[in-house]
Every structure is written in structure tokens, then in C-alpha cells.
């Protein structure tokens, strides 16, 4: 008899959840909001600024072609290669800039930690799936584009449970 009671109690606690808000995030329509504009690094204090570690953004006007990001990536994923760009910048005589292969990148953010010139940051963009492998290689020109994102949904907790907006 106690077995039946236990099963009924278990079922009952599940049935109670019919009255609870739906927790599901309806992904393509709703997108989660993150802290800040992505992971950044302050070389002066040596401490990062909290944010999501998504796709990189490269500021061409700050990049000096010093290769520190690719050196930092050397033993980790070897995702960063330096390529020639057809641009003339005063600070970048060699005209080389990082090109990132997202088929290899592990989004650890140590390349951002390595950049002393505020040139390489990470953004909130994470939608990178593709049909081909070569489309995962982002050139410096592609990296310079700021991603258009509308992320506004946050987790909400009230008496009727947790939900997304």
C-alpha cells in the first residue's frame, strides 16, 4: 500500500508542474542576454572584463601585426594564422593581421589576454554553423564586422517558477 502511495505522491508532484511557467527558451525568436558586449581584456590592469566568449572582433586601426595572439594560440589550438592584408596602417608596417579558423578555435580567450593593443576582443556572436569547413575560416575583413545581434531575453524567477520573458 505504501508503494502505491509513493507512486501517487510522485505523480502528484509532477502534475503540480502543469501550473508552472514554461522554462523553454524559444531559440530562434528569443535569444539570451549576456553580460556586456563580450569578453574583453584590459592590459593595464592585467584583468579581463566579464562577457561572453563568442566570435572575435578585430579592430584594424589598433592591430600592429605583432603576432602575440598567434603565439598565444600556438600550443592551444593553432587556430590563428597571420595573413597579409591590402591595407596600409601606420602602426602595421608588415600589413599582417590574424585570421581565425573557427573549426579549430576553442574560445578560451587567451588570445584576447595576449593582445596588448586593445585590438582583439570577443563578441556575443555564437551562431557560426556552416555547410563547409572553409566557411569557418574568418579573414581579417570578416573579423572586423561587428555582429548584428538582438539578445534581450533574461531568466526570470518568480513564485510560479523560472521562465524566459
Amino acid at each position: 500500500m505504501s508503494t502505491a502511495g509513493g507512486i501517487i505522491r510522485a505523480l502528484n508532484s509532477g502534475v503540480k508542474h502543469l501550473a508552472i511557467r514554461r522554462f523553454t527558451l524559444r531559440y530562434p525568436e528569443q535569444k539570451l542576454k549576456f553580460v556586456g558586449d563580450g569578453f574583453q581584456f584590459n592590459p593595464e590592469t592585467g584583468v579581463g572584463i566579464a562577457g561572453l566568449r563568442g566570435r572575435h572582433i578585430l579592430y584594424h586601426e589598433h592591430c600592429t601585426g605583432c603576432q602575440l595572439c598567434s603565439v598565444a594560440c600556438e600550443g592551444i589550438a593553432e587556430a590563428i594564422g597571420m595573413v597579409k592584408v591590402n591595407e596600409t596602417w601606420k602602426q602595421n608596417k608588415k600589413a599582417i593581421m590574424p585570421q581565425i579558423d573557427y573549426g579549430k578555435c576553442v574560445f578560451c580567450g587567451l588570445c584576447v589576454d595576449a593582445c596588448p593593443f586593445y585590438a582583439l576582443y570577443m563578441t556575443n556572436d555564437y551562431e557560426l554553423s556552416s555547410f563547409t569547413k572553409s566557411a569557418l575560416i574568418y579573414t581579417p575583413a570578416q573579423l572586423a564586422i561587428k555582429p548584428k545581434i538582438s539578445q534581450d531575453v533574461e531568466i526570470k524567477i518568480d513564485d510560479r517558477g523560472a521562465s524566459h520573458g
Partner: protein
Amino acid sequence: MLKEFFNQETAPHATNVLVGKLGDILVRAVGKPLDYAINWGRIWSLWPVHLETACCSVEFGAASSPRYDVERFGIIEAFGSLRQCDLIVVMGTITRKMAPRLRMVYDQMPDPKYVIAMGACAITGGLYFDSYNVLPGIDGVLPVDIYVPGCPPRPETLIQGCMLLQEKIKRMKGA
């Protein structure tokens, strides 16, 4: 066109052309809607294999959790029987010990079957580019349809990859 048809020498070729054209028209009239119907069925009932190859299975599990709920897209929770599956999500690193098993699982699945390479390790080897026991990506083992980058990818990225796969299936030949 008609001239060629009555010419003795070119007649067989012209007949072939005619039959081919008629076939094309037939395919367009009947085959396309049929393809569309078949593909529509395939899109909304993808059954992934329950084969965890490495740590990306954590995020695959999260994708079928209540928050992301891939069942909204017709991708049912990972499934035990291979004979009823048509999607294999390679969740991460393929080691030399696992590669033959992965191929064995793939060969047992009925056609048509689709492959999603999930995570940096499955795409290129990722962190383990110089490891002695890890394959540099699964391209040599399976034909890959969709690449989902990340280490591990967020469930959103995986869902986006699944949506791309659905787009791809839509444009595939039905039968």
C-alpha cells in the same frame, strides 16, 4: 528539332533527347511535389543515434533539456536503436580506438543518413592536433553535412546547425 527526328542518322539521338525531356517534365510535375513531401517528412523527424564519442555529449544533453528542447524541431532525444536512426551527431573527439566503431555505427544506419560534426575536435581535431591518439577531424571517416564549431558548441549553435541541416534536406532529392 523535327528535321533531326526524321533523319535516319540522328533519329536515335533525338529520341533520347525527347525521352529525356519528357522525363524532366514528368519529374517536375510529379517528382518535385513528391520530393517535397518526402523531405518535409524527413525534416521534422530526425532521429539522432545515441553514440557519445566525447565530452560534447554534455552540450548535446543540454540541447534536449527543457531550456533548449530540440524536440521543437523534430529532433528526438538520442535513441538507442541504430536501425531507426537517420542522423548521427559526432559529439567531439574521435580517437583511434573509437573511429572503427563510429564507422560501424554509421554503416548500420539505413539510408538516407546525415552527419553533423559537433565541436572543434570533430571538425579538425581542435585542441588535439598533435595528440598521438586522436584523428584530425572526422572527414576521413564519415561524409559530413554540417559543421558546428565551438568547444563545445552552445546548444543554440547546435540548433542553428540542425536548422541548416533541415534547409539542406529540403533541397535534396527525395527518393
